[in-house]
């Protein structure tokens, strides 16, 4: 499954009300490590059908970035049943992402 772009309007339906575990990638266009992270997210999302991967541009959705107290990007936040269960800051490898998403 590909990475889905999510914004403040779709966040509740796509993330908080998702039946699956969600990995939300908070990113920005000006952030080099975020751009390196994007293809890794795509690659892992293709292999993990039981997890939903979403991408959130923090400049277009500053309300979400504030709500979830994002102070460093890329920031990967794991949601289960609408609750944050874990997060990881900075560029990580495909193996590390797989482990984070599979917890």
């Amino acid at each position, binding site marked *: 499954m590909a990475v889905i772009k999510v914004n403040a309007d779709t966040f509740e339906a796509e993330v908080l009300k998702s039946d699956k575990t969600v990995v939300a990638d908070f990113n920005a266009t000006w952030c080099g490590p975020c751009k390196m992270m994007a293809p890794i997210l795509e690659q892992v999302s293709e292999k993990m059908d039981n997890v939903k991967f979403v991408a959130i541009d923090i400049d277009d959705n500053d309300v979400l970035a504030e709500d979830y107290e994002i*102070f460093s990007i890329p920031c990967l936040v794991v949601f289960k049943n609408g609750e944050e269960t874990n997060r990881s800051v900075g560029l*990580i490898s495909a193996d590390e992402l797989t482990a984070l998403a599979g917890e």
Partner: protein
Amino acid sequence: MYDIIIIGGGPAGLTAAVYARRAGKNVLVLEATSCGGQIINTPDIENYPVEEHISGYDFGMRLTNQAKALGAEIVMEKAVDIRLNGNEKVVATTKAEYTAKAVIIATGSASRKLGLENEDALIGRGVSYCATCDGNFFRKKKVAVVGGGNTALEDALYMADIADTVYLIHRRDSFRGEEATVARLKTKENVRFVYNSTVTALNAEKRLKSIEVTNKDGSVSTLEVNGLFVAVGRIPENRNFAAVAELDESGYAIAGENCRTKTPGVFVAGDNRQKDVRQLVTAAADGAVAATEAVKYVNEM
């Protein structure tokens, strides 16, 4: 068996791959996370020959594509050991083992941490090692920068235009960094210099609220800050390779301009080598030299 294994896909390692491929050698690059190296954190590079402006991300991507186009094989695995089997070098990753005639260690460096108890837990919650990456999250907030070198000075200057107040905390009474940057910082009204002091505790409720600063004279004070930018130097990523490359007291691999380590056929290139100038262009230069030396070694085997 590969001719040359390169550990690390940053500017040094990828340049080495370009040179080694052009010399007709088969090349494996092992990269732990994502190619590009630490330069991908830099928004704008202005000091690489020919390119007046290029982002670190574009630089990393283009160099990666160049190495791939020339036929370098890139595998995303973290190398954890090099051992010798006669003349062969066996490189172990967390998943597999690969054998080569020569190895180039181009692992670069990582940010040095302060070593405070809750520091790791606060990364992304107020503690950052990259002002240009995370600075924008602290618009009109109070922040501190800790360190005394060029990175700390430039981080403080960058944050002065974004944050409400910037405390620049340094353990000595003068800076190691460039005079010109210090002079520019002194013109900024919202920069406060905190000399002879170290950060000794991070106070947080879910995220960073304040820091404890201890002066050389023993006095302790608390600074209310939302952000702390740590710029206290870097640690070379050579720990796993001390058996084949001699390291200095700071952990840098000891090798001259020819990039040779104490082990024949093992070379070191880039920021993890002991040298005076660590820049993008010197990392690339090391890659070229190490690859040329490695090719020579393989040809003479």
